[in-house]
Each structure stands twice: as C-alpha cells, then as structure tokens.
C-alpha cells in the first residue's frame, strides 16, 4: 500500500458520516473529484480544514452539472456567499442533498431555494418564468410561458397571495412521487 497520506482525520470522517448521507469512501471520492477541478489549488491534506473555495466557473464545468440548465442556481444555493464559490464542505453538502438517500424534506427545501431566483423566499411569477424558460430553452412563446405561469401559480397557491411560499411548494411536491427520483444527481 505504501505511504498513505491522510486526507481527513477520523473525527472529520465521523462528522461527515453523521452530518451527510455519505460514507467514508464516498467522502474520499468526493475529495478526489473536488481536487481534480483545481489540483494546484486544493491540497491533498484536509486535516486542518484549509479555507479554499473554488469559483463557480470551475464547478459548473463538472460533467454532472455542465448540461443542467439550473447549474448556476444549484451552485449558488449551496455557496455561503451566494456567489457560487464552494468550499469542500459546501461541495459535500451539495452532493449530499442531491443524493439518492437524501430525505424528501431536505430536497424540497433546496429545490425551493434553487427555483427562487430573486431569493425573496417566494417563488413569484418572474421566478417561474425564468424556470420555464430554462426548462424549455425557448421552445415556448412568451405568451405561452405567461399562461403556464399563471395557471401553475393558480393551481399551487394555497393562501392566495399569487406566489408560492415554501408551504405551497412543499404541498405541491408532496403530491409528486417522482420528485425524489428526478431531483437526484449521481456522483
């Protein structure tokens, strides 16, 4: 086996295992993926928690995110500063929330944050329009987009303020059994 350089201490591993849905080997694999984005920036030894953040541009070049229309929003949601610069902890957090064994509630919360483009804690009409445009990449005309937005908000809004709060969003998602399987990124 040779000279094994430790990447994380045991305590760090235990903390990761308790706070995320990953096991030891997966954390190491994630570290490898994080490191290969910028090998000269990211050290191999993370035992003293170096404060290194990778920019948005590097992260959205990952094959898992490259073609995703929401890649910018996903990375921004999990970044601490909201600009998309992820430390390794944020990186792990992102893939843990999007993994297969993640809980429905966690996924719903983060999905709400991702789709909330203007970050006002509501999915308003503009947010929905942006979402639909990203989804369909210009296949729908602007009138159709507006119509879809209006109808969707009408369907899902429960307390009648013409935008979706987290409670409305959660209620709608709870009726969609496919959400758990589609809101899943394999790493």
């Amino acid at each position, binding site marked *: 086996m040779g000279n094994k350089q430790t990447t994380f201490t045991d305590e760090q591993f235990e903390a990761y295992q308790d706070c995320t849905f990953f096991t030891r080997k997966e954390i190491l694999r994630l570290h490898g993926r994080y490191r290969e984005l910028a090998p000269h920036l990211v050290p191999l030894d993370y035992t003293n928690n170096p404060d290194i953040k990778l920019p948005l541009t590097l992260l959205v070049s990952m094959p898992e995110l490259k073609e995703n229309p929401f890649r910018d929003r996903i990375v921004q949601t999990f970044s601490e500063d909201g600009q998309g610069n992820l430390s390794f902890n944020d990186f792990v957090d992102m893939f843990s929330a999007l993994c297969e064994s993640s809980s429905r509630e966690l996924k719903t919360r983060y999905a709400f944050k991702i789709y909330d483009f203007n970050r006002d804690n509501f999915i308003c009409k503009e947010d*929905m329009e942006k979402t639909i445009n990203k989804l369909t990449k210009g296949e729908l005309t602007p009138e159709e987009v507006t119509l879809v937005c209006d109808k969707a908000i009408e369907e899902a809004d429960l307390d009648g303020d013409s935008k979706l709060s987290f409670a409305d969003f959660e209620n709608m998602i709870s009726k969609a059994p496919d959400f758990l399987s589609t809101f899943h990124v394999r790493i």
Partner: protein
Amino acid sequence: MARNVGFDQNPHYLEAGLESPVDEEGVHDSFSQLIAEQSQNGPPSDTAFELQELQRELDEEDRDNMSVPTTPEQEARGGLRRGRRYPERDGEAEQLSPLMGGRWSSATLRVLSSMPSRTIGRNRGAIISQYYNRTMQLRMRRHSRPSIRDLPHSSRPSLRGYRVELDYNETDARRQDHLVSNLQNLSVSDRVRMLQAMPLSVAEKSQLRRQVLQKEVSHPRSQIPCCSQLKYYVIIAARQAWYSWLSFLHSLQLWQVALKRVGGRFGTGVLSYFLFLKTLLFFNLFLFLVTGLFLVLPQAVHPPKPPAQKQVAFSGLELLTGGGYFSDSVMYYGYYSDSTLNQMCSESQAGCDHAQHGLSYNMPLAYFFTIGMSFFITCIILVYSMSKSFGQSFRIEKSHSMLAMKVFCSWDFKVIKKSSVALMSENIATQLKELLADVNLNHDNKTLSQKLCRLTVHCLAWTICIGSTVACVLAVHYLADHMHALRENPMRNTSDPLMREANLLAVPVVVSLINLLLPGLFNAAAWMEEYESPSVRTYVAIFRNLMLKVSVLGVLCYHWLGREAVASETMGLQCWESFVGQELYRFLLMDFVFTVLDTLLGEFLWRLFSEKVLKKSRRPVFDIARNVLELIYGQTLAWLGVLFTPLLPGVQIIKLLLLFYIKMGSVMLNCQAPRKPYRASQMTTIFITLLCFPSFLGATVCVTYTMWSITPSKSCGPFRGLNTMIQAGRLWVEQLKRVNPRLTWLATAHSYLVENPLFLFVAAGVFLIVIYFNTQVVGGQRKIIALLQEQIENEGEDKKFLIRQLQSTHEKKRNRPRQCSRQDSAC
C-alpha cells in the same frame, strides 16, 4: 384544489373591512384590544424604533446572505433593506403588493417583511427553532419528556408544537442551546437522522454536533447507570459496523459506472429497468447462497452411491436441455439422498458416537427447511420493499396541480448528455403545451355515436387480445399433451437420441415464441384504440401482457403438477421431480435465448434497417414495461424451480449477468431516449408489486401445493418413500419427541398450529380485519386532509384581514399627527 381567493379591490369592501373591529366586537374581541393598544401607542413599536436606529447605520444595500448566521438585528436589517426597497420603487409598489390597490406604508412593509413565513427556511434562527420543536416532539414521542416549562406558549392553541416559534424574545444563542440539549437527549440514531435532515450547511451541522458531543463528555459518566452505558457502547459499535458494511457495499460498485452512463443518457425510466435487474440479481444471489450452503455443498461433499446405470458422457446438448450428464448430478432433486448424511450408526444403537465422523446432517429435513426458510425470507424482503416503494409513491388524493408539478418535477437531474438534455427540453415543452391545451379546452361531451364507436373499438381490441391469449394457451396445452403422449408411447418415439432431445425443447420454444410475438399483437390492437391518458394505455398494455404470461404459466403448472407428477409411473419416469426441474431449466434457457434474439432483431437490425433503408434517424425506443415483465416472468420460473433444481438460482444469476451486458450494449448502441413521459417511481412500485403478487405468490402456492399434496417419487430424491414432503417435518418432530421427551410441547404445538387448518383460517381472518382497519384509516386521513386545506385557506384569509387592519392602523396614526397639527389642539 386551491381556490384563488383574490382580494376584492372594491372600495366599499375595503371600508367595510376597516369598520369591522368596531362592528363585530363580540367576535373579534381580542383583535380589537390589540388594535386599540396599538393605536394608543404614541411612539412607534419596539421593532420600528430599532429599525429607525439602524437605518442611520446602513451604508449601502448589499445582497442578502443566505446561510450566514444572523442575529435579530441583522434579521431586522434584512427586513429593513427589503422594506426600503419598496418605497423607493414607487411605481412598482402596486405590482408588488397584490393585496391592496393602495400603497403600503413603509412601517407595514417593514413588519410584513419580517413575518415568519418570509424568513423561515432562510434565517438560521428560524431553522434552529423549527428543529428545536421537532426534537421536542421526538423526545415526547420517545418518552423522555421535557419539563412543562420548556414547551412553547402560544396564544392560539392550534399552533402549539407546530413549526412557528412564537417566542421571539429568545435570542439565537439560547435557541441553539435548547436545540443542543434536545439533541443530546435523543438516541444516537435519532440524533444522526435529525442532523442529516437539517437544511444547514455541513460546517454548521458539525459545529452543532461538536457541541452535543462536548456536552456529553462534560457530563460525569458515573451518574449514568452502567447498563445504559453498555447500551450506549453497543449502539456505537453497531453504528460503526453498519457504516463499514455500507462502505464495503459501495466500494463493490457493481456496475456503478455503467448505470450512471445509462442514466445520464436515457434518464430515470430506462435506468429503473437496470436497477430492477440488479434487485433481482440480489434476490437470486441470496437464494443461491442459501441453497448452495445448506443443500448443494453437503450433498456434493458426500455423494450418494453411484446408480446402477452407466453415467452418460458429457455432450454439448446438455447445456440446452439440462438432461444427459446433468440429470444425475447435484443440479436436480433426484440426486439428493433421503437419509441422514454422515451418520454411520442407526438410531437403535444407544450411545452412538456421532463425533467420530463429524456432524450428521439430516438431508430431507434440511431440504424441507431450507426451501421453506428461503421462501419465507424472500417473502419478507419483498413485502418490505413493496411497502417502502408504495409509501413513497402512493398518494391518497388525486393531484390537481399537474401543470405546477410538471414545471418543477419533470426535469431529470440525472441526465448529463447534451443530446439527451436537448431532447428532454423538447419533451417538456411538448408536454406543457399539451397540458395548456387541455386546460384551455372545454371538454365537450362526445356525442352518443362517438362514444358507441369508441366502445366498439375497445371491445374489438379486447376480443382480439383475449382470443389470441386463449388460442395460444390451448395450443400450449395440446402440444404438451402431445409431447406427453409421445414420451408415454415408446413405439411412436423415434430412436434417434438427438430427435428425442429436440422434442424436449419443443414446448419451451413454442412458449417463448408466444411470449415474444403476442405482445406485438397487443400493441397493434392498442394502436387503434383511444385512451384518456398515456398512463391508462401503459396499464392496459401491462395487464394484457400479464394475463398472457399468467395463463401460460398456469397451464404449464397444471401439466407438471397435475399430470406428470400423478401419472409418473405410467410414463416410465423414474423421477418426475427431476424431469420438472429439467423442464424449468429448459424454459429458463429458451427464454434467455429468445430475449437475446429479440434484442438482436428488434433493436439492432431494426436500427440498421431504419437507418440504411428507410433513411430515417428515428431509432427504436426501449420498451421498459415489456422488458421488465420479461424479467418478472424469468424470475417466476426460477422461483418455481428452486424446489426441483436447487442450482436454478445460479443459472438465473448467470442469465441475469449476461442479460445486463447485452441489454446495456444494445440500449447504448441502438436506442434513443423515450419520448413519452415515464413516471419512474409509480412504475417501479407497480413492478415490485407484480413481482410480489402474481409472481412470487404463484410460485409459493405451487411449491406449497407440491409439498403438501403431491406424492414424491419412490425411487429418487430426499423424500422417497414418504407420502408427502411435509411428512418429513412431521417425522422429525415425532423423532424429537421420542429422543427428548422434554420437547413434547413442540410436538403438541406443531400438531395444533401447523396441522390444524383452523389456525390458518383464524390467521387469515385477522389479516383481513387489519386490512379493513387500514382502509378505514386511509379514508379518515383523506377527510382530515380536506379539513386542513380548508383551514389553510381560512388562515390565509385571517392573514389578509390582519394586514388590512395593520395598514389601517398605520394610516390612522399617520393621519392623526397631521390632524393634530392642523387643529392645533391637544391630542
């Protein structure tokens, strides 16, 4: 269904709203108190005062941070920033506040923007208090009750214990302390689950965890009684073991890269087929290990006396027919001995030294119990996975919010290939357009003639399907009879051994051909039909396919168990169980061969044909439902055959492995992503249910019937000489009673519970009652959901009412100083 309770902008209504606290004093007594107090306050409220202070400190607006820990001042500042924005954009204030036609006062806006519903989920403090409430509930459920003082008080009893933390006087740090102490008091697994589910960043969660662990360390250990200490250590050790087991499983990475590639290119639907294959592989692996360990290995180590006839040499045809060289090997039932292995002394000798030759091994008993236990465990695993899958995908009420769901839930995040992503966008756009058209369209009632026409078309299609199924079943029945007669009558039998072997393959080939061709006919019949929705079409197709397979298997089982088993003597069959085992082996193999042929012809050649000859770029689409039903059919055969061929799970494993790679290659080369939407989780639930109900249940019923009623053959197998296979168990119990009189209770229990059919009736009755109760519970829950939705709408109304009142109060306050200054009198 969400009612769009819009605000009436009628000024008369607004005025009426303003007047209501005065008018309806009896009802809104508490509110009028509050509002009266509010309006009497000369200086602004605490919050507003604080905000005014901070306003001077603000330099510039910066973007809101999301997960940075905020103190209440920062929270208010955040609110203020938002509040500041609104008055600046004067023209847009009306657009932003759909609640009223007029403009909001900035004070109202400030209060509005710090409402819990706008900060929950973003503010760290709100998340912590929410999880504090949750851990409190969990503790109460787990019986480690907190003191009454810790419970939050609220003016509305209905909100007690719900998400909203109403005690705003608590600082953030105190809330965190409460949460940490609650987490400490939970069990380790609950704590980990809570931590994992919290929507905070990993750094914050590990900080919380560190605090919890530190607090634990600081508690003197001697105070905790040693048995709970021991329990604690045991639990920690168990968790470590569980994590290392999970790590090991993940490191195996069975096909992980291939599955990711398929998911990345074709999406969740096609991926679910391969995941189902993987699940079946694990089931078969389990069966193979159990039978291998308890049946095959002991028998292989102690082979029985070689039979009188010469051993047949190995020729290649054995792999196809399963006979010849294999017929007298560990593979089939007939090879297994009916005595206790390794027992050199008979029962009558007392003081028999068993240790002389190692452990003795009662083969018939082992056979009986191994098969029984493996079926029982498989049943438990199946029911558990079915219920879990059901729980995830079953929804009590029909959802009306199709469009919203389509927008938010239809993007498959697993797809990473560019062309597939483009295809998916196109699909989603088409579906949205279709949904819009549906919504806009008024569904005209079809005229009577149109309805009648549709009905006739449906009847015709169903007649075709049922007719062809019945025809094929009869064909199989007569063919099997013919083969039976051929074997019975040695004169009509050809002397050529090759022909004889080929005759054995006739029925399997015909059945596989039927399974291949008839679904195509069903598809053609369905093509002319009109369905309300594509999911109904899929369900009907699955049902027809299932009906075909179930009837064919039913006829075959009748032949094997009803005819061959009973009339084995006349046929000159030494060992009907081995023969049935061989038949099942042949069926399994032919099924595999024809699936491979279908993949080659249906997908590969079709793609070449359509590209070269038709010059179209439309590749064939992978038919998920049909392929999964094929898998289920193969698995049913394997389960049917375990009793007669203990090595059949091994054959099935090899078949599944080969099938995986062949199908994977074919899909990547030849197919394109599906165009129609595929509800992966619902379909997975259906497939697991189909695996459990017709497939596994049918196999269990057949095996139980075989064990219970059919006489085993007299000259081969572990149960020769007995009346039924179950008798082996009875004999063992009696033997036990003889050897050890203290175990008489076991024998009596056995005779009352297992032998007595009354017990089974009672058990079935209890199950039915339980099912009835659960259906009633579901009905009750539906009613509760309707009530809760009404309550949410009412709360929405309340909120609007309060906001209006707040606004009117602020307006009055604003107007009063002006009035005072105008009138120039004491106010």
